[in-house]
């Protein structure tokens, strides 16, 4: 381990949580301001990428194993498309979030806002992050995934 590695690693160890919090902020802020699931997901992925660059693939894999990554990839999509399907289940049309009956909230517009911010954007964020990390690892020397 070289001298500069220590500095880099320490800095990254410090900075990554902040980046991740910023990413989450961007994700949840998507409904009412600039940002949203996609951008937030990219920022989350960036934090992971920074981590991998500093600690190598094995270091990165300790934080985010291949299996978790794959499951995140799938569940993210399942979340946002699943909420869309929920709408169908409750008699609405696909993506018609207003049709989903939630406890305590009865305004269609509010239901929609809540589901988009809390569900769909999160789903997108998870997916984008997982996919970006996957693509990155695909390119990273020595980081090819299983196939």
């Amino acid at each position, binding site marked *: 381990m070289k001298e500069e590695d220590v500095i880099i690693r320490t800095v990254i160890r410090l900075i990554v949580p902040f980046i991740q919090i910023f990413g989450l902020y961007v994700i949840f802020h998507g409904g009412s*301001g*600039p940002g949203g699931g996609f951008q937030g997901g990219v920022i989350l992925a960036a934090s992971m990428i920074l981590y991998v660059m500093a600690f190598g693939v094995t270091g990165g894999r300790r934080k985010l194993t291949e299996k978790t990554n794959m499951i995140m990839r799938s569940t993210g999509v399942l979340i946002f498309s699943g909420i869309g399907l929920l709408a169908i289940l409750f008699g609405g049309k696909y993506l018609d979030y207003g049709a989903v009956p939630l406890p305590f909230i009865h305004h269609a517009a509010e239901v929609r806002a809540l589901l988009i911010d809390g569900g769909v954007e999160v789903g997108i964020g998870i997916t984008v992050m997982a996919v970006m990390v996957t*693509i990155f690892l*695909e*390119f990273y020397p020595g980081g090819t995934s299983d196939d």
Partner: protein
Amino acid sequence: MIEDLILAKYNYWIYVTLMMIGFYAVIAKKNLVKKVIGLNIFSTAIFLFYISIGDVIGGTEPIYIHGEHVVYVNPIPHVLILTGIVVSVSITAVALALIIKIYEEFGTIEEDQILELQS
């Protein structure tokens, strides 16, 4: 007249120029990475065009401000271009993955040399 044609629409002129630069790289460059760079420039130029369509002089950012009546710029092109950027980065990723595989198989990423190596 000339002001109308050039100054008022300089965004469009720039987008055409950038598009041509990108297109030139895609067609004329032999290096595959250069081609992909060209593709990126090409698509970004089109995005610029889209954003320019939506621009309204004197408009404001399309962020909803409660209770105020303001002129917004058209947000729809922005949404479209968000999608466009995603598509563009996916294409870049696929292309670069291909380039890596090609380099592993052929040992070069120059198109003319690859064509010689092909059977």
